[in-house]
Every structure is written in C-alpha cells, then in structure tokens.
C-alpha cells in the first residue's frame, strides 16, 4: 500500500493523497470530480464543501416543547404524591431501605436523588433491558416478559417473540453472525489458545495473536502502530490519564461520551467544554488558552488536547474534522479522535472519518476506536505514532492491570478486519460497506419524506428520530414491539429533557425488504401517535436532482 501526502500550497488546506487501496485497484485523487479538477474552493473555509454533507437539527414547533414540559410536570406531581403515600405508609415501598436499627444513622439510600428513577423510569422500564435469546443480527428473538406490579418485578412467561427486526444493535457491517464458514478461523484459534488469557498484557498475557492484531489495526488505519485493549470503555477511561495530567488542558465537545468524560476527570487535567461541533466556540477557547495560560499562574499549558468523536451516537452527527485539524495546527494542540461508531461504518472503504474527509491519518495524534460496533467483537484500540503507542504499552493502566483480550475475540476482529480490507481479493467487506451506505441513504431519505424530525449527518448510520414527549416515547417502543420491530428509545438523563428520541442503528445485514417493513410500520405508528413534527417541505421526486450540492457562486 503506497501512501504519499503532499500539502497543496495555493492557499487551501486541502490535503492531496495518492492512495492505492489493496485490492480495489481504484485510485482516488483529492480534488478531482469525474476526471475534472475543481478549483473553486472557497478559500475562507479551506475545505471542500462537497465532502461535508449538511447536518440538520431541526427544531420542533413550540407547542411540542410546551407539551413535553407539561407531561413531565404531571408525572412529577404524581411522583410527589406517590412519595407522600410511601412515606406515610399507605403504599408499600419497593425500594431499598435501611434496617430499623439504622434509621437514625446518616441515610445510606439518598431518597431524593433517585426521584426520577423511582417515579418515572420504574413505571416504564419494560421498554429497556429486554432479554434477547438469539444472535443480535438483523433479526433476533426476544423473551416475553410480563409484570404484575407495574414493572417493579418481571417474570418470564417462557414464550419467545421470534424474528423481531433489530434496529438497535450496533451491528453496522453485519459481523454479528454465526455462519460456520466465516467463523472457522475463530473456532480454530479457540481450540489452539483456549478462551481465557489469565493474565495482563504486561505479564504473561501477550499472545502472538495480539501482535498480529495490532499490526493489522495499524495497517488498516494507515498509522505506524496500534495497541488493543479488552474493553472499549476502559480504553478511553484508562488511557487518557496516561496521556494528560494536572497542568494540561482538555477541550472536550459538549456531547462527548461518558468514557471520555470519565477519563478526562480521572486525569486531573483542566477540562473546558465547547459547544457541539461549533468551531467558533473551539477557536475562542483555544485562543484564550494560548493567550492566558493556566488559571492563576498564567504559565503556558503543558499540553492542550482536543477530544472529539467521529460520530456522536446520540445525535448521529459527524465531527467537522478538517476544520478541527486546521485549528489544531494553528494553535499547536493535540487531537484525540474517538471513532467508536465511525470506524468501519463511514468512509468509502470503511476507514472512518479520516477517510470520509480525505485527511491524512497522521494529522490525528491519537486515534481511538472500539471493535464493539462494526467488527462484532469487543474491545478498543489506540493508534498513532510509534512513540505514543510504546509509551502507552508501559504506562497505561489497561496494559498493566487489565486482562488481555481473549483469543476468540482477537480472531473475530482479525477476520472482520481482513474481510473489510479485502485481503485475498475478497469483496465481501467492500460490498457490506456499500450496502451500509446504501441503506443509510435510503432510510434517511424515506424518513425525511415521511415528515419525521431526524438529527445528524446524511452519511451516518445512526439515525435518531425525535419523539419529544415522555408518553409518546414509551408508547412508540411498545407499539413497535407489538409490530415485531425492536427499537431503542432514549430519554432524559442521556438526552436533554425536551429531546427524547428513538435511535435506529442501521446494518449492512438489513435487506431492503426489512427496511421497507420497518418504514411501513414507522409510517403507521407515526400517524397513530402524531410523531411527524417536521415542517420542511420535501420534494417527493428527489430523483430530479443529480447533484448533491449546488454551486451558488459559479
């Protein structure tokens, strides 16, 4: 694989890469569209508009927000009423309570803090934690469970709800499969190495398959070196403290994942938050950091680390990577890119957001990702320069203390990655990537036509549909399950209080027929529950448009 990168020196910050992909034989040059070179880049932006598709965050009409607050208000009132009944003793308390002898001690169970859990979540928690009894592929089987006391306790009836279409699993490329032929190497490796590693990487847990996997990950991403860990959440939370410490500054996006926030807090560095994907906010913070330095002493910051994600899973939005890279070069900061959802799922060959924007992977200082989503395994990786990865091998908590990744999982990642890279002339991987892109485009455009409010970038396979009102969120989940479609709905603590949503994760394994069925039911449920809040007028004949964007000034 030959990769050369040169900066084009005519006032634009576009990076030109000559890149031969292994088996595709396709050569792509940045800046060339259908054989002709585009030179009218708006110099102010410094990046081709064509590469950054628009993201929409349409606001719902005002009455929706008012009714959402009304709904929450009514439930809160009833919450207070029920708490009163429980305190007085008219109602049985199902929650944990202290023993009689300890009633005068300092309270162990903070009653008010789980007000929301007790009074709203418990009423409707049959929509979450549904037990699955099959492979989480494009369709799965659920175990039926009922509750006799309004969701405080459940019991399984023993029946199975079969062939429910799975719109919630992070199975972007369909590698959650149990086809015997595909899993042959995994079975062989299990027979050879067993299942447990029984040690950490530093001690006796460094298997040859780990080395092979890390070389493969480095090749896949186009960087010098990579290191893998057994758990994706731990990759973030345990490695950020190894990279930054007190005296450093972390600039983190508003909507970053909990693992990033936890890692940042554990490190002891100063954290400043910039508005989601807002480059003005980021630049302002960077300028202020560089000019003023640390809070009281005004010494320069030891390190400035910008933490962003490739795809934000709750919004479906994509980070504006070219602009962030330009800013980081200007202000000499480091960039930490968490590609948990975007690796394997975006980009023409599945290399993630750096490929989506045609950037040089060397521009991102620390590339992090997980194998949970697109590779159907578990674990995470950090990739970058050789020095960085060597440093992490000895200084990361994960490497020293956490158990190494187990051999069947390693082999699953290896086979999935080889499939995507198209080793041995295999086209299954690239077909899956194309199928995913096709599914994403189709699904998103149909939903917009129907009149739902969708968030996020057009090329992101995570599709949140906004539901807003708490009653509708619950009814939506139940109605879809009744129609044998499993969806994930997300409400207050994970999203802002007025923006509850249902999050659809598309997969390359979904066929067009499945998507049509889902869309058909979504249409019906949307009409039943009045969920079509969008006020945009979508043309019903999108095939009339050939271009994806219009040059307004040429």
């Amino acid at each position, binding site marked *: 694989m030959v990769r050369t990168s040169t900066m084009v020196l005519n006032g634009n910050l576009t990076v030109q890469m000559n890149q031969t992909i292994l088996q595709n034989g396709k050569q792509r040059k940045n800046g060339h569209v259908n054989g002709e070179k585009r030179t009218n880049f708006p110099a102010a932006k410094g990046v081709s508009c064509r590469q950054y598709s628009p993201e929409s965050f349409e606001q719902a009409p005002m009455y929706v927000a008012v009714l959402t607050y*009304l709904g929450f208000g009514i439930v809160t009132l009833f919450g207070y009423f029920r708490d009163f009944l429980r305190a007085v003793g008219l109602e049985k308390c199902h929650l944990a309570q202290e023993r009689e002898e300890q009633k005068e001690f300092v309270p162990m169970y903070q009653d008010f803090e789980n007000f929301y859990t007790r009074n709203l979540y418990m009423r409707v928690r049959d929509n979450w934690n549904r037990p699955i009894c099959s492979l989480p592929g494009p369709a799965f089987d659920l175990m039926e469970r009922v509750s006799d006391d309004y969701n405080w306790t459940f019991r399984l009836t023993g029946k199975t709800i079969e062939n429910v279409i799975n719109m919630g699993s992070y199975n972007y490329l369909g590698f959650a499969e149990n086809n015997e032929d595909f899993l042959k190497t995994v079975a062989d490796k299990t027979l050879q190495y067993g299942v447990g590693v029984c040690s950490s990487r530093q001690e006796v847990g460094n298997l040859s398959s780990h080395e092979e996997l890390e070389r493969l990950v480095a090749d896949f991403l186009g960087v010098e070196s990579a290191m893998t860990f057994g758990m994706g959440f731990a990759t973030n939370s345990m490695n950020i403290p190894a990279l930054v410490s007190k005296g450093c500054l972390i600039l983190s996006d508003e909507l970053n994942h909990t693992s990033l926030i936890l890692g940042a807090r554990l490190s002891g560095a100063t954290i400043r938050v910039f508005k989601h994907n807002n480059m003005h906010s980021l630049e302002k913070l960077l300028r202020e950091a560089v000019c003023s330095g640390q809070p009281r002493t005004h010494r320069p910051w030891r390190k400035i680390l910008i933490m962003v994600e490739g795809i934000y899973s709750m919004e479906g939005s994509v980070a504006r990577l070219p602009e962030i890279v330009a800013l980081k070069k200007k202000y000499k900061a480091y960039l930490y890119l968490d590609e948990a959802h975007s690796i394997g799922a975006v980009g023409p060959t599945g290399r993630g957001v750096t490929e989506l924007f045609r950037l040089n992977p060397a521009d991102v200082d620390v590339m992090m990702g997980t194998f949970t989503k697109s590779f159907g395994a578990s674990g995470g990786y950090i990739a970058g320069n050789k020095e960085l990865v060597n440093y992490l091998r000895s200084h990361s908590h994960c490497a020293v203390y956490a158990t190494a990744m187990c051999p069947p999982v390693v082999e699953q990642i290896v086979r999935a990655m080889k499939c995507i890279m198209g080793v041995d002339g295999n086209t299954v991987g690239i077909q899956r990537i194309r199928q995913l892109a096709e599914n994403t485009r189709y699904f998103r455009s149909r939903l917009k036509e129907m009149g739902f409010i969708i968030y996020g970038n057009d090329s992101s396979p995570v599709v949140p549909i906004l539901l807003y009102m708490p009653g509708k969120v*619950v009814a939506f989940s139940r109605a879809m399950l009744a129609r044998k479609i499993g969806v994930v709905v997300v409400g207050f603590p994970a999203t802002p209080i007025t923006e509850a949503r249902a999050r659809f994760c598309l997969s390359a394994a979904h066929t067009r027929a499945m998507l049509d069925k889902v869309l058909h039911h979504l249409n019906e449920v949307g009409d039943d529950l009045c969920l079509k809040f969008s006020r945009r007028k979508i043309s019903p004949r999108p095939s009339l448009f050939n271009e994806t964007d219009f040059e307004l000034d040429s």
Partner: protein
Amino acid sequence: MSQVRMALQTQLSWLYYQYLLVTAVYVLEPWERALFTSVLLSAAAMVGYTSYVFLPVHLRLVLHFFSGVFDGQAESAVTLMS
C-alpha cells in the same frame, strides 16, 4: 348507522389515546389516571358552570360601563360647544 357509530367510537378512542400521550398520563397506573381525569374534568366543569352563571352578567356590566363612558363624553362635549 352502526358504521357511523363505529367510526365515531374509533375517532373518540384515538382522541382519548392522544390525550393520554400528550399529558403523559399514559405512563400512570389506572387509578392515577382516574384521579387525574376526574380532577381535570371537575376543574373544566367548574370553569363551565362559572362562565354559564357569571359571563352574561359580566358582559352586560362591561357594555354598560363602556356605553356610559361614551355618552358621558358626548354630553360634556355638547355642553362645552353650547
């Protein structure tokens, strides 16, 4: 006739469903729903009764007040002119 009734019943139950969803009463237990709906209906009934009893009286008083103001103005203007 029975078809019209069925259609009406479907429509009404759909409207009831919308009411449950929008006010988030859908998540409450049946006795809480009964409590909330009864409180809401009794408040609406009280508003209706009050407006039925007092609205005509109040409207008449308002009209009288405003007409009295205009007549008073016309009288004082006439006296000033003459």
